[in-house]
């Protein structure tokens, strides 16, 4: 499953203006970051799974959550061993391994990362990158050059993934053993993968730049696109709901 692929659909989320979707994803992330309660963070994650189910993306959201859990786990371990607040929880041989404060902070941070990143990752499933780029230019008058940089960066991810796979095959065919368990040898094998990838990427940059210039890239402004991205009532409702969620989170933090 490609984590950045657009999934076509006709749901409420799909129909939102791309600018609204981007703003909503960020606002949801902000609310999750502001939240100071472990159970509320779990609530944020469950709510996002529920919202994604309305757009037929429950499986995708679950898959994303599972992947983000791995990132969360790394954050959890780092926090657990480096935050020393509260009373000792595990002491071995007189050495405090982790504390109650460390455990709470680790749990909160790892859940916060998942809750904040999930909506941003799901944004790609409900928004075509071209639409996001065009809407940012059309509605927010963002210079096309910058919108193009962002969308191109995302568009190139699957291309580089394919290229990386092909390079790996080419090096395997020469006898490079990528399955080696020796860490030092594994590190040494980065060069035969990264050098061809870097060279092919630089070549692609040149070709892409020339191709863009030949299609009048420099002339493009916010009036150039033929597609309109009007805001509708549902966009206003979405933003109002998200503002309410942020306000509720702040109030919840102060009274809890």
């Amino acid at each position, binding site marked *: 499953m490609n984590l950045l692929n657009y999934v076509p659909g006709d749901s409420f989320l799909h129909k939102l203006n791309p600018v609204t979707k981007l703003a909503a994803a960020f606002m949801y992330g902000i609310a999750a970051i502001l939240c100071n309660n472990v159970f509320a963070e779990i609530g944020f994650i469950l709510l996002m799974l529920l919202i994604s189910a309305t757009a037929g993306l429950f499986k995708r959201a679950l898959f994303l959550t599972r992947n983000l859990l791995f990132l969360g786990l790394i954050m959890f371990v780092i926090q657990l061993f480096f935050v020393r607040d509260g009373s000792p929880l595990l002491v071995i041989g007189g050495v405090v391994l982790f504390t109650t404060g460390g455990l709470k902070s680790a749990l909160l941070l790892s859940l916060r990362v998942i809750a904040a990143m999930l909506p941003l990752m799901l944004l790609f499933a409900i928004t075509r990158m071209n639409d996001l780029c065009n809407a940012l230019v059309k509605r927010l008058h963002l210079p096309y050059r910058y919108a193009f940089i962002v969308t191109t960066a995302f568009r190139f991810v699957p291309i580089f993934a394919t290229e990386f796979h092909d390079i790996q095959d080419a090096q395997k*065919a020469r006898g490079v053993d990528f399955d080696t368990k020796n860490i030092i040898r594994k590190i040494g094998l980065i*060069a035969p993968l990264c050098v061809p990838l870097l060279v092919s990427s630089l070549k692609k940059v040149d070709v892409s730049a020339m191709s863009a210039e030949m299609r009048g890239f420099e002339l493009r402004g916010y009036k150039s696109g033929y597609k309109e991205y009007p805001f509708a009532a549902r966009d206003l409702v979405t933003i109002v709901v998200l503002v309410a969620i942020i306000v509720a989170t702040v109030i919840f933090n102060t009274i809890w």
Partner: protein
Amino acid sequence: MIRFENVNFGYSEKRPILKDLSFHIPKGDFVALIGANGAGKSTISRLINGLLLPTEGHVYLNGKDTLKTPSSTLARDCGFLFQNPDRQICENTVKDEIAFSMKVQGWPEDRIKERAEQVLETFDLDPEWFPFSRSRGERQRIALASVLACEPELLILDEPTTGLDYLECIRIMDYVTGLNREKGITVLMVSHDMELVQSYARNVIVLNHGQIMGQGPTSEMMKNVDVLKKARVLPAQIPELALRFGDEFKDVFNVEEMLDALRKKSQRGGQV
């Protein structure tokens, strides 16, 4: 050398690429795999060196089952020249690039040095060249030199002459043919270029939708226009012209034979 036994392969269950494929390529042969895009040519070449594994059946390279042998081990028997040399080149100088494959295959240092010098001379390459700034033809020559430095028993060429000019193409193919004739290296070439296949391959396997449509000597297969058309392959020009001229030209296969046949015909006062 290569044996496919009832091989099935697909990138997904819904889209099978190869269906119950069985064939054998003996040691020392020069075989061309031809067919339209999506026929399964590149898939077959990647199954041989273990980059892909069959979903059913077995592929044997030199008696080794690819399901049980890692691709890094199969690489000792099988050199693979990709269409795009840039995916392979990873060192800063040509001499390091040539030595790279030998190093990863565990050759001793003194043997690597000796063999690298030999290969650089054979392929007319400057050891200090920065490979990435050379022309496409030179980069392809560097990649081939690096593959052949390890003295594989089988050489797989995946569209080896794409993007090369005529002289560079002839240079590479003549060298490969020489190795096949003199050292008995088995060559498997994937190509869309029927003129190239006709000029160099001894035998041909015609593929269509993952199945073999025909297999046999190049001179016979190139004249089997029905099979070639079914496999959506444009026949080489001389054999097709000979077929259109009729029975008198049925043994004509290349330009020289065509000239001879035309001369004989005109001496007899005949008209084509």
